[in-house]
């Protein structure tokens, strides 16, 4: 059996480790075997390959040193930074909770859900950085690594390809080697060194190499190869040169329409905070590739981020028409139904996910809540029981206990509720909602000082929530501390301007003050 043939076969069957081993043996015999070299490069790349479209984590350094002038005060509805809060049909924060960035919680965790750019470096560093919201200091911190693969790559005798010794112009002339080499540098070399101190230096170094390679190859192909243009755009994007990236992607798109190019370009526009352009672009993409799921999902995500839940749901439904096994779409529609007061329908969506084989804590948590609101009490507790047994980290446990506490409140068992919230806090002491609800329970017991303390903690942990502020205002109002009450009510109004009770409270307080 020919070893190279076996290596190819292993590569086809995605047994990259075996493939790389055979190629290494071949290369030991003949170090100049280009075919084996190329195949090994591909295998090593494929081990760590992550679709560049899916990566979008903006580090603090990128955010702060971003010199692309973006309108600070954009017109409403044209920016991702200041989504309009009250679009027609959009849920109010009284119904649907907010994420830290001040957007309604989405049904699906995807890259960039928790974004929301801090204003200054100081602010960025000071924002509470709990484990769940931590933002990497720079995006070059090796988040591209797929777990469990990087360790396999430790090479006893140094790296496979010495980038510093690479004669790039030689490779750029050989199209069949250059593309493989480029992908190797882009995906593989970027993360192996992620921990080392020299990383920053190395990254910039390898970026320059990449850049040279891409630029040279583009020239070699007489600017006719769209693939190289896309790669050049990817390099520009990683370097934060968004306009240049846009130019490259557009030029590539002119040469040949590909789904990926549309997605890359939309990523650039999202970085540039131009959601409307993204929508236009993706819709144009849909004209070329009707029914392409990734494009549809892209549109739905933008609508979702813009708080336009109705349109987002429309597009998610389109996604399901094309691909009825799309977990993201099912989850998003489900959560949307839940928050628009249709727990029974949400329940059906989540049950579908369960039947499809999704089996995790979050799903059972959601099932439990839906069952409770749909008055199927017999299933509620067992769902939560499963959720607890499936939880993998403390945050998840805390969320389940928090919801259990909520249910205890619903059935009027205050002792149980109290204990549940306490347990939620024991598992995750950053749980602002649990603090708030605990404060309410303490208030009912008459422990006002304690309630005040809890509310203040909740407010400092989650300044975007209006509930602790309002509760604090109401409490202060009752005990006669009108000044604090007014201050807190103002904060509550800032977080949720349409809240009727807050408005009433402020009005009442203003009357008081004018009487004095």
């Amino acid at each position: 059996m020919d070893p190279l043939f076996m290596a190819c076969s292993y590569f086809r069957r995605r047994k990259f480790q075996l493939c790389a081993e055979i190629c290494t043996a071949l290369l030991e015999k003949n170090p100049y075997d280009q075919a084996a070299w190329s195949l090994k490069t591909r295998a090593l790349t494929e081990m760590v390959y992550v679709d560049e479209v899916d990566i979008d984590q903006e580090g603090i350094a990128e955010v702060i040193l971003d010199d692309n002038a973006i309108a600070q005060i954009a017109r409403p509805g044209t920016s991702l930074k200041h989504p309009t809060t009250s679009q027609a049909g959009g849920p109010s924060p009284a119904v649907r909770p907010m994420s830290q960035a001040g957007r309604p919680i989405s049904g699906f965790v995807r890259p960039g859900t928790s974004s929301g750019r801090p204003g200054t470096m100081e602010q960025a560093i000071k924002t509470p950085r709990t484990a769940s919201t931590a933002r990497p200091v720079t995006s070059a911190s090796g988040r591209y690594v797929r777990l469990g693969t990087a360790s396999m790559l430790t090479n006893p005798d140094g790296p496979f390809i010495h980038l510093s010794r690479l004669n790039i112009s030689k490779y750029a002339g050989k199209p069949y080697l250059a593309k493989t080499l480029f992908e190797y540098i882009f995906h593989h070399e970027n993360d192996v060194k992620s921990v080392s101190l020299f990383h920053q230096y190395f990254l910039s170094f390898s970026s320059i190499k990449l850049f040279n390679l891409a630029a040279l190859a583009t020239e070699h192909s007489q600017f006719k190869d769209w693939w190289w243009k896309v790669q050049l755009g990817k390099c520009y994007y990683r370097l934060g040169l968004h306009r240049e990236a846009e130019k490259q992607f557009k030029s590539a798109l002119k040469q040949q329409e590909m789904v990926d190019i549309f997605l890359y370009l939309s990523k650039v526009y999202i970085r540039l905070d131009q959601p409307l352009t993204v929508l236009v672009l993706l819709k144009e993409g849909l004209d070329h590739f009707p029914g392409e799921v990734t494009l549809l999902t892209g549109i739905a995500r933008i609508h979702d981020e813009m708080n336009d839940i109705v349109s987002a749901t429309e597009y998610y439904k389109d996604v399901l028409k094309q691909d009825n096994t799309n977990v993201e779409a099912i989850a998003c529609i489900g959560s949307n139904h839940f928050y628009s007061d249709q727990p029974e329908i949400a329940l059906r969506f989540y049950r579908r996910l369960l039947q499809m084989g999704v089996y995790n804590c979050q799903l059972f948590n959601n099932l439990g809540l839906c069952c409770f609101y749909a008055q199927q009490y017999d299933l509620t507790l067992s769902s939560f029981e499963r959720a607890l047994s499936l939880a993998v980290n403390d945050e998840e446990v805390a969320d389940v206990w928090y919801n259990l506490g909520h249910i205890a409140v619903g059935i009027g068992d205050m002792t149980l509720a109290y204990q549940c919230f306490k347990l939620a806090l024991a598992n995750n002491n950053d749980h602002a909602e649990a603090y708030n609800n605990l404060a309410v329970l303490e208030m009912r017991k008459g422990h006002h000082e304690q309630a005040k303390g809890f509310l203040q903690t909740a407010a400092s942990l989650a300044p975007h929530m209006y509930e602790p502020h309002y509760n604090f205002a109401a409490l202060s109002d009752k005990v006669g501390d009108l000044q604090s009450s007014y201050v807190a009510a103002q904060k509550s109004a800032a977080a949720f301007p349409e809240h009727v009770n807050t408005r009433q409270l402020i009005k009442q307080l203003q009357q008081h003050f004018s009487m004095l």
Partner: protein
Amino acid sequence: MSLFKARDWWSTTLGEHEEFDLGCLCVADVDNSGSGNDKIIIGSYKGILRVYSPQPSKPGATAQPEELILEIQLQDPILQVEVGKFVSGTELLHLAVLHPRKLSVFAVSGTMGTVEHGNQYQLKLMYEHNLQRTACNLTYGGFGGIKGRDLMCIQSMDGMLIFFEQESYSFGRYLPGFLLPGPLKYSSRSDSFITVSSSRQVENYKYQVLAVATDAETKQNSEQQKLGSGKKLTKDWIVNIGEQALDICIVSFMQAASSIFVLGERNLFCFKENGQLRFMKKMEYSPSCFLPYGSVSEGTINTLIGNHNNMLLIYQDVTLKWAAQLSHISVAVRVANFQDLKCVVVTLSDSGHLQCSYLGTDPSLFQAPKVESRELNYEEMDGELKELQRVIREAIKSQGILPQIKEDDLNVTILVSPNLDEIPVTIWSRLAVQNVKLSVCVLPPLAVTQDKFTFAEVAGTSRCVILSVFLKRSFPPAELGGDAAVSYSTQTGIPRIAHCKFSLPLKLVCQQSQPSKNATNKITIETNKPPVNLLALFPDFLGQSDDDQINVLGLKLFSGATTTVLASKTSRRYRVQCDQFEDLWLITKEIVQRLQENFASQGTQDFMCKFPGPIPLLEYFELIDKHFELRLNAEKYKELLSERAVQFRAIQRRLLTHFKDKTPTPLRNLDTLLDGTYRQLIALADAAEENQTDLCQAFTRLKSATQLIVLLISLWQGLSKDQVIILEAAFLPLIQDTQELGWEESVDAAIVHLLRNCLSKSSKDQALSFTSQLAMPKDTSRLKKHMTLLCDRLSKGAQLSLTTDSTQQTITIPGKLTTEQGECSLDTVL
């Protein structure tokens, strides 16, 4: 993720430890039975050729021996099996088997027996070609438009296309720009070969062009011929798809135009015959194999795609129509017709699992495992719940966070020996405990030689470590004591803590010196007992002396001022004097303590010290001001630093724009500015650090003075122990102060609280402004005022006690309190 699984019709497992890949599966009526009954032909990399004819008695049945109609071990590994009209003079189907160095064509024939298991099948070699080069894959068809027979084309590992016209070799051609072999297929409509090359392009070569191009045999001379001969191998069309391909299929069905399907690593492409893209589909999984087949609806083509998540997906163009779970990762998929069932999906895994299945609504196998549940005994559970609730209630009542432990499993003892050199710390444990960590902590300026010790296990014995404490910085400490804490976990894994305090001798920080007559700060302490000889009080300093009556003792604190202790000969007074107010503390405390000890050892019960007053608040306030000033400085430095940092980043950004510019422009001294700002930043940071050190020193001094003040107040008013504790808690709330939460504001809040509650005389006092937010005050005047007020109240006989605390807090909130119950965090999935 799928709702359903593929329904098993017939399945079997082939061999053991054999490997299979794409080319190893072929479905055809290979024995020309004419019944329309397909046979499954499988060759393995071990060289075993098998032919199956599945006839299950019922769906899901396992394979019976007679269904394996042929099994033969060939000498070489089998790379690919194909069935076609490979033998000249006949249109019967024959079997082509591709080995690495050989191509064999066999005829399969069967002789029917009288009973079913009497059927005999035979393999007869028709012809074979030995290959000069290692083969990779094989494609066949009527090249050049020949009808009724199939020619073969083999792609070798080094990029040569070798053509065979049935029994005879016709020619060989090298593919240009070749590196690794890609999939190769023949398209009969356009009479061309389609492959995906290493430069990630779909390339189309006309058979005509290949046939007339330069012969591969003469390739050695091709360098010279290149200029002369016009027979260069040119591509008909190329399309750049930007990725490598797994497989190619060319289909033409009645309902749809002939199209070329290319399964890439991440996308599925469909091209028209001229290379125009019909559609593409981005796949969010890794595909393993695919097969286009005819669709019932007009103008569309269905595609079966197997992926590495054990799924079989069926697309109609780009729309997902069905997804079914398979029991294995399939490397090859075919559709076959059998006797009683048309269009059965045949899949083969790389370990040799062969399955014939059909689509159905059998739910996918996944079943959530049962949650561990026990037999419910409601009475017992009720009892347990009650018991637990009782425990919880008690725990809440006692307010203690940790349960009281009656006997410790582990003890720490520290014996401070007077020779100062070594302090032995002994850990003794009754039971075996794990993960024992000892940490010893003293406050600066003192330091210990080693502050952390770790033992893996201490079992029933004692461990002893020796360390020593020394004065590290150049100011006297605020207290001569330290803490040793041991954290450990018991056998059951419960973490526990044991700790112990120790106090250090005064000798550590001071020595005897010449007493000085005059000093700015003086403190007089009166007692109700006759004076004691200083020799008896300070034997460790005055060790051997000729005088038996000493009234004056000078003590010099290392790196501090000299303190003089005077004992009156006649009256019952002692005087402590020093130039530095805060340095009085250690000595004063020592005297009071030693006096008490002295009298206690003599058996006197009613010994009392008294401070005649007034409290030296002015000197104290000076220290507060000094500390506060440093804090203000720190704040200033912080602001400056952030200002400079903003400037630095602004310059950086400017520079970045400059460098990014296409046309290089002069930097306009921005680099100098950057450098300057950087140096400013470093200088500021240095200054801030120095300030921090000063602040630490000032805080230690302040602490000394505060403790002195507390002592004096308690002596002055003769406060009880409880009251002293309250006072201490109010005055010394922090071990260390920080910029965010400093000493001034916390003490102010505490004193205001005391004034409002237990020391208040009238309701007017409650109007004392009480800020709910602890923030750094603008100046210390308020604090001073409150402290003076506190002393004043105490002197007028107010009682410090916390029992009256809650009298004013009885306003209850009536029922209706609109509260937002937060929200239910409907969690995110995945």
